[in-house]
């Protein structure tokens, strides 16, 4: 039976960390695994939330449209993704005052509002909650906790209930692992990380008392400190919004949060592992040209950053720990704080994300997935579409014309979001290139810098991905193949593909084709 793991992404940063996590699933880092993934954000119209939904949709439909899906092994898209999302509904009642009927309560039962008056400024009571908790973590923790409980009580068919039911089932039979991805310098993530395990425990008890989740489940989380900045609001914006999270306070927020996580007993009793990470400076601008403060909504769509991939690898590490280690930590009520730094020269290599034992696995899977992106996206190759329309029948490779065209479309969409895509005649950078930019460019990020040098469709078509994926003078320099004087990349690929065998253990034709492509590329690149 496939391994069950539970991931919760909270807030805007959490959404982007989940994106990176999904990409890890896509390249095949979570073989034989059923991933239950909960996206939690107050701002359901947030650009990053929308991008995440598009990505997970493309992933799930690539694995199969209207078909039962299975976790696989040694292929791309191997993990089975089960996606859930929850956003507290602040569309009609969108301020603290409205949620808690503050106005009437203040006059009828002033003792109940006294603590709110003590802890919350007027601005905090009145700002629009639709775009998140805006670094008001004291408010956010309370609101998020109660939103979760209310949702379980009110909505029998909601995603949140389904997620917790899955966690309950996993807790009945075993010791599930829950990993939380979010930041500690902003609003929603910082508010929710301390209270999520308690909220889940309470919510689960409302559903069933069959299992004690807090007793059986292991919890880990990222403590992702500030890594970006954005323009400070002007006076008009401050006046209009009342409360705005400003990036000049991110470092202070992070510092305060880290002190909290170091000392709070509740958090220490609940979690077993914390992964601390951040960047040295806040120089990175998440949105290319941003001239005004964006509090949330569709316009808040931050580019991806390599630190989010590191967060995803923190989750990977947590899920691959031995149960004995986690059992020991839990029994002794210990919480382990981990951190990772990058080389002082600023270069980011595979070993920095996953350690020396598995760096080849990561290099292989990410490199081959990138190679496959060329074969999928570019009309020059368009391999999967060719297979789907029966093009492979010329060499008597049959059966792939049965692939649902929607699966191929979604595979192309996914690859575009991963690497690059064209929209309305314009080239857009996918996740990989955004990560490259966030690292500072040059030869600083994982692959050969030539991989990131294409600026037009023509350049992508002419790019020699047969031998320019891995860096020269790296451990993976020899992972490439030649095309010969009169040859071509596609000719080499397809000639090798014809020789490969059809996997028998996979039923879905699209997944068969993906697996066969994976095997072919593995052979070509000498893995």
């Amino acid at each position, binding site marked *: 039976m496939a391994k069950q793991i539970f991931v919760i992404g909270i807030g805007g940063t959490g959404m982007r960390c989940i994106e990176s996590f999904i990409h890890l699933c896509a390249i095949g880092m979570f073989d034989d695994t059923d991933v239950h993934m909960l996206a939690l954000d107050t701002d359901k119209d947030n650009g990053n939330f929308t991008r995440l939904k598009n990505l997970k949709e493309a992933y799930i439909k690539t694995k199969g449209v209207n078909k039962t899906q299975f976790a696989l092994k040694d292929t791309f898209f191997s993990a089975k993704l089960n996606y859930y999302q929850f956003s507290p509904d602040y569309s009609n009642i969108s301020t603290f005052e409205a949620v808690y009927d503050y106005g009437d309560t203040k006059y009828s039962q002033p003792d109940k509002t006294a603590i709110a008056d003590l802890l919350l400024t007027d601005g905090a009571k009145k700002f629009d909650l639709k775009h998140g908790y805006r670094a008001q973590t004291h408010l956010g923790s309370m609101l998020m906790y109660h939103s979760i409980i209310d949702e379980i009580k009110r909505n029998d068919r909601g995603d949140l209930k389904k997620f917790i039911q899955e966690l309950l089932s996993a807790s009945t039979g075993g010791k599930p692992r829950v990993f939380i991805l979010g930041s500690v310098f902003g609003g929603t993530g910082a508010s929710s990380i301390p209270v999520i395990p308690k909220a889940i425990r309470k919510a689960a008890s409302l559903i069933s008392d069959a299992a004690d989740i807090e007793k059986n489940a292991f919890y880990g989380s990222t403590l992702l400190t500030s890594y970006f900045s954005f323009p400070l609001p002007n006076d008009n914006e401050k006046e209009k919004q009342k409360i705005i999270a400003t990036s000049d306070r991110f470092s202070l927020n992070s510092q305060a949060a880290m002190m909290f996580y170091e000392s709070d007993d509740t958090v220490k009793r609940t979690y077993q592992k914390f992964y601390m990470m951040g960047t040295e400076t806040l120089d990175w601008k998440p949105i290319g040209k941003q001239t005004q403060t964006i509090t949330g909504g569709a316009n808040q769509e931050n580019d991806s950053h390599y630190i989010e991939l590191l967060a995803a690898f923190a989750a990977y590490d947590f899920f691959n720990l031995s149960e004995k280690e986690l059992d020991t930590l839990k029994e002794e009520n210990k919480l382990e704080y981990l951190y990772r730094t990058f080389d002082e020269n600023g270069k980011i290599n595979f070993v920095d994300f996953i350690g020396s034992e598995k760096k080849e696995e990561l290099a292989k899977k990410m490199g081959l997935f990138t190679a496959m992106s060329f074969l999928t996206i570019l009309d020059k190759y368009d391999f999967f*579409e*060719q297979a789907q329309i029966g093009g492979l029948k010329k*060499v008597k490779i049959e059966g792939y014309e049965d692939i649902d065209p929607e699966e191929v479309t979604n595979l192309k969409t996914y690859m575009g979001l991963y690497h690059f895509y064209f929209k309305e005649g314009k080239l857009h950078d996918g996740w990989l290139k955004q990560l490259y930019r966030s690292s500072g460019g040059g030869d600083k990020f994982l692959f050969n810098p030539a991989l990131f040098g294409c600026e037009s469709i023509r350049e992508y078509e002419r790019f020699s991905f047969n031998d320019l994926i891995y860096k020269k003078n790296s451990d993976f320099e020899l992972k490439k193949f030649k095309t010969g004087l009169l040859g071509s990349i596609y000719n080499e690929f397809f000639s090798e593909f014809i020789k490969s065998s059809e996997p028998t253990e996979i039923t879905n034709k699209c997944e068969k084709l993906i697996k066969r492509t994976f095997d072919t590329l593995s052979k070509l690149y000498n893995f």
Partner: protein
Amino acid sequence: MNKIENIKQVNTLISETYMLAIIAVIVALVLAFFIAKLILFEGGKNDRSYMKRRIWYIIIGLIAPVSFYLYNMFVVMAKIKKAPLQAKFSDANLYSTLIILVVYVVIGIITMMIFRKSKWGSILGKTK
């Protein structure tokens, strides 16, 4: 080549012609196979590389027998002076040319079916 003046010489010439026909068909098949291998698989939705290989197969399949026939007709037959001997050789020329054509097509198709998952086999086109 010496002049052909008697039936014995014509019969020897005819035997040699049949042997040359076999060699010609082997050379034609090898050449067609080699050209098929040189033509690269093409990516994209409309990979027409199999059509290119087919066209070359047909071109070689026409050039080989036609040039063999014409060579025998104008070069070899010029050595035969007597009309009845020419007629006898002419028949042999025709039959050996047909042999080239038939063997080229039959062996070609059989080998294409055996090596179906290859560039050579792709000449047959899409399976139904």
